[in-house]
């Protein structure tokens, strides 16, 4: 390529309006972040595992075989061919159960975090844009909400709502909408001071047009970073509730449920605890790395 051409290309790109420039440059910045690429790849792998579990899992995750109970993982003395990560106390294949467990974890991650994000950011936009009376009301509500310990609140909520996936998701949404509300409120207030909003006002845009067409698109990047972090939190909350026995029924494989079982028989079969714990750890770290990477690439101070 001729150097002058590249210079021209760059000049052309730089002359384009800001809105068109930003998305590709952010994506390319992210792609250069090796941690983000690895973590994002891992999350993609989890999605593939969750969707393709029936075809990918080597065994039926519910099939019991008491003759093959607590078989150790491959490579350890006493292991059985075909059971790569060994079996649990009822002779069920640990690897298949971990693979099927991604389904509940990812469902909760996407649905619960998504709903919390939706509710929290709507209230945050309202608080940040609709004036001091509504702001005072919503902010007070957030303060009261956050005064309560999340773990206790989630257990209490699930006990009230009854066990099951719906309750777990409801509990996470009810508890964590405040995170989004706070951040979106602050961002909205900051954006509302910007010149482009003043210009939009001067041009006679309606309030809802200013809020959703002008301000909201500029809040979205922060929201996406926060949403990714929230997904990691949701996965842990679901695991904790499964561990305590308050999540989905025990015939659905979940990482938390496996961890609870593994904790009981840790002296006889440590792998029943170790395998789902490793999966949970990697998932939480992956969501966090992607979220941090997004936040880094958005924050001009941190970007340096």
């Amino acid at each position, binding site marked *: 390529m001729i150097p002058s051409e590249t210079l021209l290309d760059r000049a052309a790109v730089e002359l384009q309006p800001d809105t068109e420039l930003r998305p590709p440059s952010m994506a390319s910045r992210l792609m250069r972040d090796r941690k983000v690429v690895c973590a994002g790849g891992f999350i993609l792998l989890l999605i593939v595992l969750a969707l393709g579990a029936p075809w990918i899992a080597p065994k039926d995750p519910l099939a019991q075989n008491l003759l093959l109970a607590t078989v150790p993982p491959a490579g350890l003395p006493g292991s059985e061919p075909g059971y790569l990560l060994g079996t649990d106390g009822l002779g069920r294949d640990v690897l298949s159960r971990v693979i099927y467990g991604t389904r509940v974890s990812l469902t909760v991650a996407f649905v619960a975090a998504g709903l919390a994000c939706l509710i929290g950011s709507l209230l945050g936009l309202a608080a940040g844009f609709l004036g001091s009376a509504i702001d005072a009301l919503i902010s007070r509500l957030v*303060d*009261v909400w956050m*005064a309560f310990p999340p773990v*206790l609140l989630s*257990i209490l909520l699930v*006990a*009230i709502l*009854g066990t099951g996936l719906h309750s777990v998701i409801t509990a996470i949404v009810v508890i964590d909408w405040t995170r989004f509300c706070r951040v979106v409120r602050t961002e909205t207030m900051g954006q509302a001071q910007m010149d482009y909003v003043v210009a939009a006002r001067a041009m006679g845009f309606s309030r809802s047009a200013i809020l959703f067409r002008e301000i909201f698109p500029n809040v979205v990047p922060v929201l996406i970073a926060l949403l990714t972090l929230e997904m990691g939190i949701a996965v842990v909350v679901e695991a904790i509730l499964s561990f305590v026995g308050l999540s989905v029924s025990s015939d659905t494989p979940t990482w938390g449920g496996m961890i609870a079982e593994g904790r009981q028989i*840790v002296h006889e079969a440590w792998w029943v605890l170790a395998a789902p714990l490793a999966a949970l750890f990697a998932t*939480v770290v992956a969501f966090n790395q992607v979220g941090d990477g997004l936040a880094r690439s958005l924050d001009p101070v941190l970007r340096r």
Partner: protein
Amino acid sequence: MLLAVVVKRAAMALLTLAGVAVVVFVLLRVVPGDPVAMMISPGASAADIAALKAHYGLDEPLLIQFWIWIKGVVSGDFGVSITLHRNVAAVLADRLPATLELAAAALVVAVALGGSIAIAGTLMRRTAGEAVIDGLNSIMLAVPDFIWALALVLLFVIAIPILPLTGRIDPVLAEGFHTKFYLAESIVTGRFAVAGNILSHMAMPTLALALPLAAVIVRLLKQSLKEAMVQDYVLLARIKGFRELRLVLQEALRNAVGPTLALTGVQFTFLIGGTVIVERIFAYPGIGNLAIDAVINRDFPLIQGLVLLFGLIFILVNIGVDLTVAALNPRLRHA
């Protein structure tokens, strides 16, 4: 001025607490799920059930139940636990010291660990050592107490079996205590073998609770220290010929510690919330473990008592943090 702010915040918090108590009280009774159904034997007659309900006041209208409960709370009587058949206040008094000792130990470990890693990172700034600390810390920031607790089980119970998995103390040693503050009492009375046994039981839950907080401390304190290290007063001290360690400890730390302290206070309330699940994992006999049992068994009086107790602890921690931050910051003290 400062006192007025603290009083105002405490009043606000108490109001919140009262609101939470009302909501929990109503929610618990409106939703399906009968606590009596969990206590009766399968062969109980309808009359038996009615008698049992009457015994615990569960047959009264909601408002009357609430009035009875509130009257009791004001006079220090939280009712009788349905599953434990004991006075709720007595149960909580029995269990609270274990949780307080655990939370305090975790706070000390978190501050010591986080503080020293942050200082080490500051001393090693712009070296490979700092990169290693930053990299590890970014992972540590993501890992919650629940995962730490179970990872520690795998490490110290299975891989290197040196720590006991459950409980607070070996049952044979649990005799002869005058208070429920086993650790504090055994240290004060010089029974160091007993204290050692208690510490070995507390090691894993303490570490699981401390590590996430330590990670937060490392990130913020290291950032503040780095900013402080390029200030003029540090430069002046450097010109005077002070060694690097002294620059960090005596000059930078004093000015950098404020924000970390405030955040540590906020995070300490999360740590206390974390005792719920961590105590569960290690079968540690504190109020957190109790809370899960109470919720699973729908033990209304006990749940209500626990909610109020947790709320009160959070209020006290927040006031303590406000006062500490103010005491260390002269600008706020005279504000």
